[in-house]
């Protein structure tokens, strides 16, 4: 790394650490109903939304009601997005006269954006009308992120409320997250992006005559408004096919820095929000520390691998160079964002391994907006459980007993995506339909398949994009993987919240295992790595590890 590279990385980390208490504190005030910067201004809009929707934000919900509301809202969102894609050919704001999206692809895309995955088996500029991008995708970019935050809030209330039975109100959590957090941040970011050159217009594509006399069709669209929320909401679905490698989506080093910063901003800040809401900032910082250590370890490995690799500009953009591409690749897979500024398929085996590994750990290294933290809380319950086993005491977290029911549910949430990745990837390499999509022969082909299901089952959305994903096999199987990854984690998390809410809080005793110290951080990291390693080391050995060894010997396929 040159000095300038180091400065950029330090700037990135410094800003992230500085903004965590600032934004985290603001979010805590918003969600606990205190007055915060924008709540005065936007409160009339909030009341208006409740009136239009006919829902009462004061009604407290039990976990089953909360889960029911969440599932209903997401199901309707999925159906609306599906319908919009199928019918876009006859709907307005379609200047390129693009036809309706075929059913399999439309279903995959609808699931993808509702589950905050944003896996893309299509290229936006060639497939989707402006109306579909705005009224369909942009909306789900917001509400899927807000859904993740809502689940986290419900779980937090379950862990902290003293002998209650309810978890808050889903409608209120959803609206507040959207209105007070996602919308203001996105509006600000979108305008900076436009100033730097990200397109934002409803005008049709322009045909120009190039300097040498050829023709070039310049694709346009309302991109900046969507790019801002796709970064902030850990969505990651590009307006254009090549995502944030596209100069219209990410034109300058400044936009690159801000978009990359937006990936981790909210997931990181939520750790502080969590600390505030459980009444101990140290709890939040302990989680932040565990995430940061895992993040930096991944980045160091990826950067070493990538800089030592010849041909490392393949799939990368000149204005970003190696370091910014590797930092983005690490951040986008650590958080379940999935946007890319360089093509992951062309990364060196080591850097590709880190990208894969970040997803396979369950998207808990900062992770998705809300989703990363409630995922990490599952691992934390497992950690206190294991620590309890070691010393022979009943495990407890935040003064509440963790019992068989909670540990079982946490195991379901942790293992469901793991099992999905392995079973579906095995299906793909055993069937002609699965194998036909592989574009790179040799061990890299296995990595492509593994990456596809690691990405979908953990709701990341990035791809080894050489794999032809727009086939019946990958559209439907990937769709199922995304649904399992999302809702097999959300429902158990809410169920845990429900059962914890009913438990009494005991004051800490000398035998209590503290969950805000260095020992806990180390143990938590150990548990996360252990679960990931035990599940995936064999298949990773056959994919990226083998590829690395063969590359060292100069073998190509």
């Amino acid at each position, binding site marked *: 790394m040159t000095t300038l590279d180091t400065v950029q990385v330090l700037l990135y980390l410094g800003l992230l650490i500085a903004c965590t208490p600032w934004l985290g504190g603001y979010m805590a005030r918003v969600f606990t109903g205190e007055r915060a910067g924008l709540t005065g201004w936007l409160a009339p809009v909030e009341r208006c939304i409740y009136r239009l929707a006919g829902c009462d934000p004061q009604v407290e919900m039990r976990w089953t009601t909360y889960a029911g509301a969440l599932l209903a*809202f997401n199901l309707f969102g999925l159906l609306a997005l599906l319908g919009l894609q199928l019918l876009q050919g006859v709907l307005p704001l379609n200047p390129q006269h693009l036809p309706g999206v075929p059913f399999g692809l439309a279903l995959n895309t609808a699931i993808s954006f509702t589950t905050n995955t944003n896996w893309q088996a299509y290229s936006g500029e060639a497939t989707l009308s402006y109306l579909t991008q705005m009224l369909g995708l*942009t909306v789900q970019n917001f*509400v899927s992120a807000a859904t993740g935050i809502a689940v986290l809030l419900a779980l937090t209330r379950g862990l902290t409320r003293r002998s209650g039975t309810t978890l808050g109100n889903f409608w209120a959590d959803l609206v507040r997250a959207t209105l007070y957090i996602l919308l203001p941040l996105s509006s600000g970011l979108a305008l900076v992006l*436009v100033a730097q050159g990200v397109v934002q217009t409803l005008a049709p594509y322009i045909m120009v005559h*190039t300097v*040498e006399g050829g023709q070039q069709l310049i694709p346009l669209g309302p991109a900046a408004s969507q790019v801002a929320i796709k970064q902030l909401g850990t969505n990651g679905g590009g307006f254009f096919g090549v995502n944030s490698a596209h100069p219209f989506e990410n034109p300058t080093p400044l936009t690159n820095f801000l978009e990359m910063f937006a990936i981790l901003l909210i997931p990181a800040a939520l750790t502080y929000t969590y600390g505030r809401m459980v009444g101990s900032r140290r709890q939040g910082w302990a989680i932040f520390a565990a995430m940061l250590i895992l993040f930096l370890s991944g980045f160091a490995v990826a950067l070493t691998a990538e800089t030592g690799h010849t041909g490392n500009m393949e799939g990368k*953009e000149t204005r970003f160079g190696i370091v910014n591409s590797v930092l983005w690749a690490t951040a986008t897979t650590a958080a379940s964002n999935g946007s890319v500024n360089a093509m992951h398929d062309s990364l060196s085996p080591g850097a590709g391994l880190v990208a894969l590994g970040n997803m396979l750990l369950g998207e808990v290294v900062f992770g998705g907006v809300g989703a990363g933290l409630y995922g990490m809380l599952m691992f934390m319950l497992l950690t206190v459980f294991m620590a309890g086993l070691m010393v022979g005491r009943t495990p407890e977290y935040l003064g509440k007993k963790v019992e068989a029911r909670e540990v079982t549910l946490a195991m379901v949430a942790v293992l469901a995506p793991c099992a999905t990745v392995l079973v579906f990837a095995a299906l793909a390499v055993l069937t002609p339909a699965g194998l036909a999509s592989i574009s790179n022969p040799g061990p890299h082909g296995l990595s492509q398949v593994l990456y596809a299901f690691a990405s979908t089952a953990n709701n990341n959305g990035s791809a080894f994009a050489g794999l032809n994903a727009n086939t019946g096999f990958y559209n439907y199987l990937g769709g199922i993987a995304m649904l399992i990854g999302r809702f097999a984690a959300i429902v158990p998390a809410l169920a845990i919240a429900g059962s914890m809410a009913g438990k009494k809080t005991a004051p800490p005793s000398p035998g209590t295992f503290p969950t805000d110290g260095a020992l806990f951080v180390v143990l938590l990291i150990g548990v996360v790595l252990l679960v990931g390693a035990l599940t995936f080391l064999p298949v990773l050995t056959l994919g990226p590890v083998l590829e690395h060894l063969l590359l060292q010997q100069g073998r190509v396929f």
Partner: protein
Amino acid sequence: MKDTILPALRLLAALTVLTGAVYPLLITAVARAVFPRQAAGSLVQNEGSSVGSELLAQKFGSPRYFQPRPSAADFATVPSGASNLGPTSAVLRTTAQDRAAAVRAACGLAGDTPVPGDLLCASGSGLDPHISPESARLQLDRVARTRGLTPEHRARLESLVTALTEPPQFGVLGEPRVNVLCLNLALDRL
């Protein structure tokens, strides 16, 4: 059940209007008022008509011009694309060797002259508008020779390349680079 379904539907409608219509249209309106050129694709005018976007690479085949980075989709824009070839791809390796040979032949360089990586590797977007300053300097002789530039003009071309080399943004962010379309347009006006 009814307590859930109706509010879910109506809330979806309300949030769709807010985040899917009001928000993007508001951003579009502000963008058009404050940053009209950027919002519309940063088009570059030459002799009264648009010749492309400053942000998108376009094909330059003639040796009279500086050439952009290789594009796996041959500079297609709808959609654009990358090679997505992995590090152990034999195709990728031979393609890079062929490109190196082609650059050396076109620029009249010895067989062992190193060629900058950005000219050997296809970009991520397929539309990377920039090349590295090294790649611009490497092509300078070829362009000057093909155009039959006088030593005086050649010197002006050299200072043009230097002038159009963008440093890292704010001195810190990103990599130094040269915009190929801007350079070639300036070249034609030399």
